[in-house]
């Protein structure tokens, strides 16, 4: 009986939470759909510096909320994606972008995985070639061939 009550309370809390979430979303849809789409697109591209491994779309940190508001205002003014991203990069640096630009300082980041793949590929190629040289085909003798056939026939 007690656990049923507990379950009901939990359920009630869940339902309340979903109501609150809807209320928030409705508020942000005041402006037109194009602006909203731009805000959504950009906030998925930008890092929340407080929580670092979340985009500002995912984060509920105060700063992320402020930045979303700021982005929405800039979007309403008709600024392009590039202009808004530049505005934030000027303040927070490239780290704010989830996709950092290709620069001298980020070359390793961008090309490192491909370099590793290439190195691994070359290593594999060399190893296989060497193996091929070491391993010599040894044909079966007539006696061995007969034994193999016997065994195979027995199995089936």
């Amino acid at each position: 009986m007690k656990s049923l009550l507990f379950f009901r309370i939990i359920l009630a809390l869940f339902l309340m939470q979903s109501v609150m979430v809807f209320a928030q979303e409705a508020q942000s849809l005041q402006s037109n759909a194009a602006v909203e789409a731009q805000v959504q697109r950009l906030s998925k591209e930008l890092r929340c510096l407080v929580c670092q491994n979340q985009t500002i779309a995912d984060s509920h940190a105060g700063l992320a909320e402020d930045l979303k508001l700021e982005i929405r205002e800039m979007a309403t003014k008709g600024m392009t994606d590039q202009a808004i991203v530049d505005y934030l990069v000027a303040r927070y640096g490239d780290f704010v972008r989830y996709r950092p630009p290709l620069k001298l300082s980020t070359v390793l980041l961008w090309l490192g995985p491909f370099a590793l793949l290439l190195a691994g590929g070359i290593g594999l190629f060399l190893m296989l070639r060497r193996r091929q040289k070491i391993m010599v085909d040894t044909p079966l003798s007539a006696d061995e061939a007969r034994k193999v056939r016997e065994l195979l026939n027995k199995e089936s």
Partner: protein
Amino acid sequence: MKRALIPLAIFLLVVGFLFKGLFLNPREVPSPLVGKPTPQFSLPRLDNPETVFSPKEMLGKVWMLNAWASWCPACIEEHPVLVSLAKTGLVPLVGLDYKDTRQDAQRWLDEGGNPYTVTVMDVDGRVGIDYGVYGVPETYVIDKAGVIAYKQIGPVTVEALRDTIIPLVKRLQAQ
């Protein structure tokens, strides 16, 4: 024998990188604002909401801007350090009270002492965004021409003052 050393060399290289990584602070994001002019603002003062303060007033002086808040735990640790810095009279300290209420901020200064020549209220955090603040406390050292010379992320410690900030301030003042 030599061939066996290759995996060992790779292993040591990785260990080297990881070991270095242990001592990096991922929260310290280098600010692109260092070397740039201070973003301008005009914000109401804490002591007198009728008057505003703007960084232009500090032109010709080396000064420090400290973003703080009464709700910020790390500021508790930092505050006495700032108070002792203020007592030396070396450099004017401007407080940017970030997303705070006037009442809480005033209580904070009444209780802990007021190291600031001026404190301004950034209630909605807009000026904080212009300065790239992502976590209080953060502190900027600004030169006579109004250019940001240094940014301290996290609390100003006694060591940071002694080793970095005070020598920098003196160098900038001598310019």
